[in-house]
């Protein structure tokens, strides 16, 4: 390998890519060619750094300089100043919001200080399309160790002892799952990686596959050895083209290096991996539905037992684990079960990756030890609520989880505490809301998603959720009655108890948790016909305060319906019959003359 003086890592994650990080990399390469620096500087499109809020991110190694909000035209100054003259470009450095000081090393940023990266250990550090860089950071060491020094039973034992639990949401102990599958003898077994990340607002698995695909390849081979499977399948969303490409490259490179295929590392163990594409069905995250989809059928779940460990893909014993779960496996093997078990809380070991999003200052991908409190995540790592507003709720677990509130801020994040608080870990979506979010509308939003994604096989989910949605819709339109709230609870408990799969059993959670934590808001909608967040359109109207209005006309110009009239320099008024409540005037008025009633 050539030895470069500088590596310029340009984030190639989806968020940064959407902000033209690929153009930044192209521009850097052009200038490098121009100035004949090809032998000294290498530009790498790396995986996600996590700090999406400040993207696109460019990191310069070896001096660890972290540039934020980089634009294509900044490529010139980065080369001219940093690379050629050795001076940091101050205007591209992160500014600490409290001290207003420039920070060049990400270690000292609030966003990174409380994080601990295990699953994301290589994301942003390597070129994910180059196996040698992965190997230099320890990839395939675990596989080598397993194949040369350990029996399958020993390997399963390490995973069991580590306390690793499924990161897809439900938290089933991974080692136990492997053991159940290992026990069943068959002529063929399968290892399946569940990369059908369907939770809206979650992109943990995608970032791991895009940033460190070899960790998945290695872990699947380790799992195959442990349970006696020679075939691996990755079920991945077709909507993730970059992750698909990177996995394909990783698989073919691993084959070239003899890390996949026949007689891996001379051990006599055969293992290979194929990709299977999902086609946009949230229910396929459920393992039996996923297996049916891989078989070319509609992705409908079936009753368990039999569990996939007994009869899964093509009726053979199959072990299904989530991407993030797999990403933890290689490092557990190399560093040992004790090391992993020393991190986290009593019943939830290790770390968890979250996609932190919503009304928060630092949107991004984070990884924290289990047991970290919601407060630390939202206010330390997340930097608090946007625009100085008040924190209202945090939603974890996506459509299967619930909305937690201020009183839960000191809840430690682990599987059991979140369930006890009325939500769940889920796959790692974490959406923060401020007072501009209406909790009834949020519950309706999630139910709309569930109704759309329900496969329709069992009636509690297909019909029950639809009924709940209709009731919520009525409430948001001011037509709800108090007995509707009771009915919501009844329906929720029936659906929870009787739905066939995890999707239906958890779908009432967003409704139940908002009923529990934001009861007053429901009552306001029903009794006072009022939506305090100003979200439910039927319950609000815009009004112009004739005293504050100076008659500038900005509101009438922006109104799409011509609903605002008035003489120049005179107070204007809104024709409520024409108004579609789009809020354009409200946002335009500089004098605070327009209010929501």
């Amino acid at each position, binding site marked *: 390998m050539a030895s470069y003086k500088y590596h310029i890592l340009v984030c190639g*994650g*989806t*968020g940064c890519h*959407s*902000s033209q990080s690929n153009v930044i990399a192209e521009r850097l390469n052009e200038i490098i060619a121009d100035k004949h620096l090809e032998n000294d500087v290498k530009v790498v499109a790396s995986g996600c750094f996590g700090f*999406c*809020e*400040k*993207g696109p991110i460019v990191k310069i190694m070896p001096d660890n300089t972290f540039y934020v909000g980089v634009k294509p035209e900044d490529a010139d100054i980065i080369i001219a100043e940093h690379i050629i003259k050795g001076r940091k470009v101050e205007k591209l450095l992160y500014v600490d919001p409290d001290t207003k000081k420039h920070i060049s090393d990400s270690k000292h940023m609030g966003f990174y200080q409380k994080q601990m990266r295990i699953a994301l250990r290589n994301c942003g550090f390597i070129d994910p399309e180059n196996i040698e860089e992965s190997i230099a950071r320890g990839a395939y060491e675990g596989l080598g160790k397993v194949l040369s020094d350990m029996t399958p039973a020993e390997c399963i034992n390490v995973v069991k002892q580590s306390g690793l639990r499924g990161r897809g949401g439900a938290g089933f102990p991974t080692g136990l799952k492997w053991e159940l599958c290992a026990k069943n003898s068959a002529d063929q077994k399968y290892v399946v990686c569940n990369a059908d990340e*369907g*939770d*809206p*607002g*979650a*992109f943990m698995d*995608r*970032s791991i596959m895009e940033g460190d695909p070899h960790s998945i390849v290695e872990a699947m081979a380790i799992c195959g050895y442990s349970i006696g499977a020679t075939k691996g399948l990755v079920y991945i969303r*077709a*909507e993730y083209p970059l992750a698909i490409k990177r996995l394909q490259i990783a698989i073919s490179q691993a084959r070239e290096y003899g890390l996949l295929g026949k007689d891996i590392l001379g051990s006599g163990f055969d293992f290979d991996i194929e990709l*299977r*594409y*999902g*086609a*946009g*069905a949230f229910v396929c995250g459920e393992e039996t539905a996923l297996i049916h*989809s891989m*078989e*070319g*059928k*509609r*992705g409908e779940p079936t009753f368990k037992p039999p569990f996939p460990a007994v009869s899964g893909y093509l009726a053979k014993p199959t072990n299904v684990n989530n991407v993030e779960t797999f990403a933890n496996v290689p490092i557990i093997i190399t560093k040992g079960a004790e090391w992993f078990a020393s991190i986290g809380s009593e019943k939830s070991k290790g770390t968890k990756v979250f*996609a932190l*999003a*919503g*009304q928060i200052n630092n*949107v*991004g991908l984070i990884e924290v030890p289990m047991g970290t409190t919601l407060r630390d995540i939202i206010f330390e790592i997340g930097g608090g609520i946007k625009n100085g507003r008040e924190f209202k709720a945090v*939603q974890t677990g*996506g459509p299967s989880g619930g909305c937690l509130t201020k009183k839960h801020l000191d809840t430690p994040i682990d599987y059991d505490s979140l369930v006890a608080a009325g939500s769940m870990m889920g796959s790692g*979506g974490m*959406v923060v*809301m401020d007072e*501009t*979010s209406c909790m009834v509308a*949020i519950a309706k*939003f999630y139910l709309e*998603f569930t109704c759309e994604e329900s*496969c329709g096989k069992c009636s509690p989910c297909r019909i029950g959720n639809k009924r709940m949605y209709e009731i919520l819709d009525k409430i948001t339109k001011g037509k709800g009655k108090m007995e509707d709230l009771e009915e919501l609870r009844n329906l929720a408990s029936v659906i929870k108890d009787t739905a066939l799969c995890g999707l239906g059993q958890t779908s009432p959670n967003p409704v139940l948790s908002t009923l529990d934590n934001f009861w007053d808001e429901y009552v306001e909608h029903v009794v006072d016909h009022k939506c305090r967040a100003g979200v439910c359109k039927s319950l609000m109207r815009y009004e112009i305060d004739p005293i504050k209005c100076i008659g500038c006309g900005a509101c009438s110009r*922006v109104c*799409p319906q011509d609903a605002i009239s008035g003489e120049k320099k005179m107070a204007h008024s809104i024709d409520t019959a024409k108004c*579609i409540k*789009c*809020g*354009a005037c409200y*946002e335009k008025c500089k004098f605070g003359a327009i209010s929501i009633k």
Partner: protein
Amino acid sequence: MAVIKLSESKVQFIKGVCKSFNNEGGEVINVLHKVQGEFGYLSAEVQELVAKELNIPVAKVYGIVSFYSFFTMTPKGLHPISVCLGTACYVRGAEKVLDELKRQLGIQVGGTTPDGKFSLNCLRCVAACGLAPVLMVGDKVYGSMTPDKVKEVLAEYND
């Protein structure tokens, strides 16, 4: 059933795809991915031919096409617009952006403008939550959208 006949080149393409998967019924999802990738959508005629080539009932093919949201039976506009309605975008006001698009284009979600130029759809999360709310026109992502910016975005596609 089918009134419109597929062109010979299309027929050959579909037959070729099916053959590359050994005409196995279990590969129907992979076949449909390839075919839709080429034609943009899966018409009734296409589904019939796929069913025939894979030796499975048309009802099974239709069952799959209608089950998975990635597959579509209607042609998209020249510039397909997708508004992200993932939670992160939703809480940052994606619905208002969607309403404005509907108003300016004069179509509903799932519709295509009469001139075939734009079609409007929703999707769930493009993993660019830092830029929320976002929308995509083709493969291009537009971040930090507001109803105000809708006009500008559409104007980029006026020739």
